[in-house]
């Protein structure tokens, strides 16, 4: 019988041995290099920071082993809804590491950064075309920062028109960053109840639309994976009341080349390059969250804006109405290179095909699983489907249990308990990069778990048993937080 290897259980500090080292630094080649002679004493650390003392082989082996404790898209199907865990092309990595990109200082003279600026300018233009927006800022570091930028531009827009509006409407199905970003921008959030399938409740919307409302913020397709059909009506209703409409573009992977936020009437839309445009997630970032806007919001774009003047690219700082800066420099350029490489690789037909296949794959899963799990909404879905484990829950098996069991069966888990409006939600986003074979294996596993819930819930409750650690005590972690390593005496 096969047996699991004992898991590796070290923290780098535990490999430390006094005097060991992995660094390679030249000796000083300049005269008079004693820091004690160069710096006032009070600025020199009294004692060395307690950092690891390890060799290069220690480092390589430790982090190689740690990596083996992770599931990644490169090794596992990762059906994490809302996250678009598609395959991250390797050529993008090579391109982002080209010397002229990776080693370029952000404050290098503009004349010596023309290639980087051109890439940004073209990418912004391409994202504008893809989204049907008029202009795009590449500066936001992730989706949530794109939201903040977008909402701040809306705020500035109203203020510039002399209007003080204080609330933003957000459906209860929204991602947590939507209300959080909105609050950060100084608005009060009014939560709208969605219809059961995540559609906007038009009556409720109508009721809430007034002069205090600055914006309505929705996700399209919505977080149940459905396209909001009455979108034109919605954007018109809002505009009629002077309300700006914000689209959370996290689900853009569903609609590339099929429909465009700008054409639907949205005023603002952010992108997640780390979702739709293949930049890797890296265990939680870096991402990149460009924000697109219609022309009336252009004066408020974050500074600086990349512009092209007579074939020369430049950073334009002279934007008196700008909301200002979001991060110190121009955006997560390394991610921009990857997204640019991806868009150039795919071309217009390729991008459309991405969405078509993403939709096909999600519907295939939906079809194969609808007998065993409850659907959250009728009809076809877009690029993801949300199932409910409420049937399994009655048998004592929760969405979380199902997630854990999937880990044992060789899959990462779907998103669970999101959107909040679906009980025991299992949000499954396969992406276009997965094959039917993989989807079938996953569906077989899901169906097996549905059977086990009926006949052998113990196996599910015990899961995972094949991972380096088994279920972890979250309560203990929160009650007695241990947030850093300390030597045991």
């Amino acid at each position, binding site marked *: 019988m096969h047996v699991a290897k004992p898991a590796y*259980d070290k*923290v780098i500090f535990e490999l430390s041995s006094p005097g*060991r080292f*992995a660094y*390679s630094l*030249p000796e*000083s080649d300049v005269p*008079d290099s004693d*820091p004690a002679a*160069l710096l006032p004493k009070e*600025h020199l650390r009294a004692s060395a920071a307690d950092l690891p003392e390890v060799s290069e082989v220690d480092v390589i082996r430790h*982090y190689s082993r740690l990596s083996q404790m992770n599931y990644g*898209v*490169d*090794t*596992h199907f990762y059906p994490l809804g809302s996250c678009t865990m598609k395959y991250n092309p390797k050529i993008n990595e090579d391109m982002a*590491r*080209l010397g*002229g990109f990776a*080693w*370029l*200082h*952000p404050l*290098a003279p503009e004349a010596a*950064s023309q*290639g980087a600026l051109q890439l940004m300018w073209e990418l912004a233009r391409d994202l504008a*075309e893809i989204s049907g927006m008029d202009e795009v800022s590449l500066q936001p*570091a*992730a*989706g949530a*920062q794109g*939201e903040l930028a977008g909402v701040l531009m809306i705020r500035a827009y109203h203020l510039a028109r002399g209007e003080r509006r204080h609330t933003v409407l957000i459906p209860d199905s929204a991602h*947590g960053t939507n209300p*959080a970003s909105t609050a*950060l921008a*100084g608005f009060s959030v009014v939560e709208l109840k969605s219809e059961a399938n995540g559609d906007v409740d038009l009556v409720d919307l109508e009721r809430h639309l007034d002069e205090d409302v600055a914006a309505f913020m929705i996700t399209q397709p919505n977080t149940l994976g459905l396209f909001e059909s009455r979108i*034109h009506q919605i954007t018109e209703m809002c505009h009629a009341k002077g309300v700006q409409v914000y689209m959370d573009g996290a689900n853009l992977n569903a609609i590339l080349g*099929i429909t465009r936020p700008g054409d639907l009437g949205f005023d603002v839309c952010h992108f997640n390059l780390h979702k739709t445009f293949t930049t890797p*997630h890296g*265990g939680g*970032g*870096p991402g*990149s969250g460009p924000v697109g806007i219609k022309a009336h919001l252009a004066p408020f774009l974050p500074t600086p804006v990349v512009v092209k003047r007579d074939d020369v690219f430049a950073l334009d700082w002279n934007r008196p109405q700008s909301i200002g800066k*979001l991060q*110190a420099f121009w*955006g997560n350029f390394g991610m921009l290179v990857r997204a640019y490489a991806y868009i150039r690789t795919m071309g*217009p*037909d390729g991008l459309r*095909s*991405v969405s078509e296949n993403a*939709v096909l794959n999600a519907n295939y899963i939906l079809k194969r699983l609808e007998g065993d799990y409850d659907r959250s909404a009728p009809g076809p879905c877009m690029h993801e489907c949300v199932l409910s484990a409420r049937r399994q829950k009655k048998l004592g098996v929760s969405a979380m249990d199902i997630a854990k069991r999937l880990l044992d069966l060789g899959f990462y888990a779907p998103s669970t308990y999101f959107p909040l409006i679906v009980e025991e939600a299992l949000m499954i986003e396969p992406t276009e*990069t997965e*094959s*039917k074979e993989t989807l079938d294996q996953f569906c077989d596993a899901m169906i097996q778990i549905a059977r086990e819930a009926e006949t052998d819930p113990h196996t599910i409750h015990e899961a995972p048993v094949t991972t*380096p650690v*088994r279920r972890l*005590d979250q309560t203990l972690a*929160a009650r007695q*937080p*241990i947030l850093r390593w300390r030597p045991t005496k």
Partner: protein
Amino acid sequence: MRYISNTSAQQKEMLGVIGVSSIEDLLVRIPAKARLARPLALPSAMAETDLIRHLRRLAGLNAGADDHACFLGAGSYDHAIPSPINHLISRGEFFTAYTPYQPEASQGTLRSIFEYQTMIAELTGMDVANASIYDGASSLAEATLMAHSVTGRDTLVISRGVNPLYRQVVETYVEGPGLKIKSVALGDGVTDVDALRKAVSKHSATVVIQYPNFFGSLEDVRAIADIAHEAGALLIVVADPVNLGLLTPPGASGADIVVGEGQGLGVPMSFGGPNLGVFAAKQELVRRMPGRLVGATVDVDGQRGFVLTLQTREQHIRREKATSNICTNVALCALMATIYVSILGKRGLRKVGELSTAKAHYAARELTKIPGVRLRFTAPFFKEFTLRLPKSPERVIKRLMKDRLLAGVPLKGFDRAYKDCLLVAVTEKRTKDEIDAYAAALAAAVA
């Protein structure tokens, strides 16, 4: 399409299972008038060889520090990046994993973040650090919001020694909550302590300084901490952790929150991003911190394991009441920093500081031997210093580019008062030869 796995035969088969005849049938909820009736107006698909040719050309138009001697700083630094970092972070299991929501399948990421938190806490001299914020500037902005929420006060007192780009980001972030900013002028290269004392009041949520500051000078953190604390304000110190192997950690001088840009810890400059926002604080502030935190715990078998913890601070649970809107952060950059600190270690990180100090001071000595070239301030500096030039810095920069020298950051764009100034950064990577070449070229340029 090489990134799309299903063949057209499979697509047909799947449509059959679904019970529709085309993908169009799945898009029925998208009304006709919403449909894009034409192909996207984008360049058509490029083959890999063409793409490489094109991007190599674009990259070739840029003056990278790989083939230029880079004396640029002001928030991004050309420190040496040990080779193992890229090899390790490129492993797909790290690179292509999501935020560790399923901890059992993410122990690699979780453990490395736990290590990262420990290292940052050590370096800054603080109790706890989070798993990262986007960059140093947004990290500072988050810190000011946190100071506001902790103190319930509305005014931020910010030294003009803080990177002006950072101050701009703070301005953006405090627009929503409507906080007020009071700027404190510099004396001779460092925050004017008397002016600061006057600026601080019982409305001050925080005093913000940078150490070493934007101009490279070393602030008297301890004195400023006392002023802040007397007024009941928190002291936020912006500090680059790569310097803290040698310099006194702000935590030891009384900082309540330390933020900063961690790019120097093994992250490529990459035209300014992605970066690594470092965020550390005192223990008692932990439940007000923005961003993710990883904590140690045990599994059902009693084995040590790691999880995301104290999540009730975060947007996915607390929504509009969250401590921050941050979700995706810069975990991979934190991993780079973790590996960097592991490699440099206790002695190496100190040595990076020592070499940077030595070379910066050598450079300052050599450059100021040139007639008309002077240090702008007399305050002690660390690895970066401000020169006053007898000729336009922009012209000098252009001239030195010909010798593959990136001479420094001209300060005119930040403040017209410094229009004759050049900010010069010298890391451990610069050689005496490069510095001497710089001196020679500068002498010629200003002659």
